[in-house]
């Protein structure tokens, strides 16, 4: 769940809880008020009743006091207007009655009037009269039109009969009208509002309680029901105050919550959310803005930026290092202090020193350098250190001298590393061009040797022809010198051999040579070869011996031309590199399915340190060059290549200044399952 959602949920929950608390408090308060009202309702009712009793008691006393009085009995029997005026009429105001009526025993009205002198005596029926007489003292209400009147009626008796035991002499009726004036007096006295049934109860804004007050007629039937309303302003004030307090508490707590929400949402939730979103999307613009803020978010944003930059740097560094170590040419980088900071795998290979050892060293502590002409370079003349000083890209060929003394030619491209316009180091790419140089040199040597080798017999031919021509010019009869023909043959042979050798080498190299398979007699080939070399053998006075241990079975399965070339090369080498008066011994023997031929000669031999290269193309041993400067070093190379194609092999042993033995093995001609090519 996101932080902003959490904040929203938390504050919502807090709002809900506080609202519930306020509501609970409100309901509790209301309940308490209604209990309070319930408690005092009966009390109020009773006190209202007592008040009515009290207010009515005056009238009741008036009625009962005036009715057991001898003067009244006298008046009933003999109505004296003076008595009526002095005693009854004055009482009307004294007792605050509305009307007074006096009846005699015959139920005849003998006095009747009200405050307004407008009395219309109530019509009492027989039943009522009977009841009134029976009751002695009566209290009831009547309604005539809208006028409600309370009546107090007492039977008239002599003064000595307060118990009204004697026969009633008449009726004393006192009435009091419950008009608006009376009601307002009652209201004032009771502190209530009295609402007649004909009126609508007023809407009250204060705490109040109401109860009905019923008035009955003489038959105990309800003639009017008042609603009595008691108000409790203090309670109301208390209630209103507590309501207000609740409201204030609610409002302020809501306000506080709102502020907390806004604070958390805007000042905490939003930045965190923005931060996490930009981290997620790797959108660093916002963080760059945020990092300027002095708050913790600024610090956080800065931290994230630093970390991500660090990550990026590490990532790209790892990437670069992988690329740099994989490149084929040697890469070396140095810092401002010329200390090595990068030394890739190719550099390790080139200089024969591990990166671990090279790092931190100065470049001239790892290797020495020379110009192409061989002049040694000082540490600050190295292309790399010059690139550091001159801010230029430098590309040149130098000769590198490894810690072990080995040298190699290299093309070096050095370039400064510039950061914010300042050189912080330099890097050089170093490519070993030894192989290219060797190839170039060998090509040059080859051309030079071949052209020299061809020119020599050509010279001999040219000169011989020149001699022939001049001889003919002098005289047709002059005999051609004896030596001319062998000279020409020898020259042509040399040319032919050389051209064949070059063609063979090129065929060997592009794999286009095909060996035939024919059964040949080795001794015949050998004899031909020796015949060709007869002159040379004779010139050096060599002794040639042939030891055949094959019982005449020296057949080989081979390619005639190729084998001829092999035998020629080996035998002519033996002749060429023999000392004068030396010996050549040729042995043939059968070994399992092979014919093994050994060609031995005495002579300087092959120097030990050069023996591994003897079959290389264009290689000539140093002593061979000295002994016989002619030759281009193809004979043994061709022989070995041919023998491999023919399913044979060649090896040698050479003891310098004693003897050299070349041994070739060829598939035997009688072996049906012999190796064939």
């Amino acid at each position, binding site marked *: 769940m996101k932080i902003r959602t959490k904040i929203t949920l938390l504050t919502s929950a807090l709002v809900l809880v506080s609202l519930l608390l306020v509501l609970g408090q409100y309901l509790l308060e209301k309940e308490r008020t209604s209990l309070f009202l319930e408690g005092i309702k009966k009390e109020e009712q009773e006190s209202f009743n007592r008040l009515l009793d009290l207010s009515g008691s005056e009238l009741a006393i008036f009625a009962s006091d005036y009715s057991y009085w001898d003067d009244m009995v006298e008046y009933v029997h003999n109505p004296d207007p003076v008595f009526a005026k002095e005693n009854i009429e004055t009482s009307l105001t004294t007792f605050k009655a509305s009307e007074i009526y006096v009846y005699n025993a015959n139920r005849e009205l003998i006095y009747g009037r009200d405050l307004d002198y407008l009395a219309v005596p109530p019509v009492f029926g027989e039943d009522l009269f009977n009841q009134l007489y029976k009751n002695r003292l009566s209290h009831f209400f009547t309604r005539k039109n809208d006028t409600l009147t309370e009546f107090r009626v007492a039977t008239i008796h002599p003064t000595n009969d307060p118990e009204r035991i004697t026969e009633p002499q008449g009726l004393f009726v006192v009435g009091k009208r419950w008009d608006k004036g009376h009601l307002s007096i009652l209201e004032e006295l009771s502190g209530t509002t009295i609402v007649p049934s004909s009126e609508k109860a007023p809407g009250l804004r204060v705490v109040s309680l109401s109860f009905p007050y019923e008035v009955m007629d003489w038959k105990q039937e309800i003639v009017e029901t008042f609603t009595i309303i008691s108000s409790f302003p203090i309670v109301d004030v208390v209630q209103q105050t507590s309501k207000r307090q609740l409201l204030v508490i609610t409002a302020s707590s809501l306000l506080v919550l709102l502020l907390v929400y806004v604070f958390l949402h805007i000042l905490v939730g939003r930045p965190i959310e923005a931060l996490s979103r930009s981290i997620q999307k790797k959108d660093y613009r916002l963080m760059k803005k945020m990092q300027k803020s002095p708050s913790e978010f600024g610090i956080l944003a800065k931290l994230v930026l630093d970390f991500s930059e660090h990550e990026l740097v590490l990532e790209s560094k790892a990437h670069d290092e992988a690329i740099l170590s994989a490149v084929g040419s040697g890469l070396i980088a140095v810092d401002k202090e010329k200390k090595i900071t990068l030394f890739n795998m190719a550099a390790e290979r080139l200089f024969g020193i591990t990166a671990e050892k090279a790092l931190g060293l100065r470049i001239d502590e790892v290797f020495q350098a020379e110009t192409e002409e061989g002049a040694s370079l000082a540490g600050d003349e190295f292309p790399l250190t010059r690139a550091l000083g001159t801010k230029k890209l430098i590309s040149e060929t130098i000769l590198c001298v490894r810690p072990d003394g080995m040298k190699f030619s290299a093309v070096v491209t050095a370039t400064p590393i510039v950061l914010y316009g300042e050189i912080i180091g330099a890097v050089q790419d170093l490519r070993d061009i030894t192989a290219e140089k060797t190839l170039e040199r060998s090509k040059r040597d080859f051309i*030079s040797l071949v*052209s*020299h080798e061809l*020119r*020599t017999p*050509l*010279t*001999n031919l*040219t*000169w*011989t022809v*020149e*001699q022939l021509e001049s001889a003919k010019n002098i005289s047709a009869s002059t005999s051609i*010198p004896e*030596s001319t023909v062998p*000279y020409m043959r*020898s*020259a042509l042979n040399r040319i032919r051999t050389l051209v064949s050798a070059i063609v063979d080498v090129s065929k060997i190299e592009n794999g286009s040579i095909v060996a035939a398979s024919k059964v040949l007699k080795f001794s015949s080939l050998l004899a031909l070869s020796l015949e060709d070399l007869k002159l040379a053998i004779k*010139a050096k006075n060599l002794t040639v011996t042939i030891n055949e241990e094959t019982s005449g079975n020296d057949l080989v399965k081979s390619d005639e031309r190729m084998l001829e070339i092999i035998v020629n090369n080996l035998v002519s080498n033996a002749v060429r590199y023999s000392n004068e008066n030396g010996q050549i011994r040729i042995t043939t023997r059968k070994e399992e399915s092979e014919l093994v031929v050994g060609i031995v000669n005495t002579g300087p031999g092959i120097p030990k340190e050069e023996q591994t290269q003897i079959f290389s193309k264009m290689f000539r041993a140093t002593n061979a060059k*000295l*002994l*016989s*400067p*002619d030759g281009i070093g193809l004979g043994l190379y061709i022989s070995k290549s041919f023998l491999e194609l023919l399913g044979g092999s060649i090896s040698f042993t050479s003891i310098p200044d004693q003897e050299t033995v070349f041994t070739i093995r060829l598939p035997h001609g009688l072996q049906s399952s012999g190796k064939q090519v």
Partner: protein
Amino acid sequence: MTKKHILVVEDDTVSASLLSDKLVSAGFEVEVAADGEQGLEATKNKPDLILLDILLPKMDGMALMKALREGGEWGAQVPIIITSNLSPDDGAINKVATYAPVFYLMKAEHSLDDVVEKTKEILKVV
């Protein structure tokens, strides 16, 4: 008039014979040496001119010439004609000018007559 004495240092027997025969018939006295060592030995006879091949057994022409030039007054000034089939730009002979007086003749490009003429020219023989 005594015959001029020419030393031919040439390992190729055919070339040596042809040169020698031609020079003899042109009226020179000729001595032939088949390798560098023999050649150097033969200079003790103080020939008037040396025809010198470069690629020679035992001691090459350049070494022989160096030994001569640095070996004494006579050796320093005896005229030498290099007769070789090496190209003039070949590494083996590109220092040849150091050892003047010296002339260079590529055998394949010159006839025997040319060699004789050059020899006569140098020795001022008519």
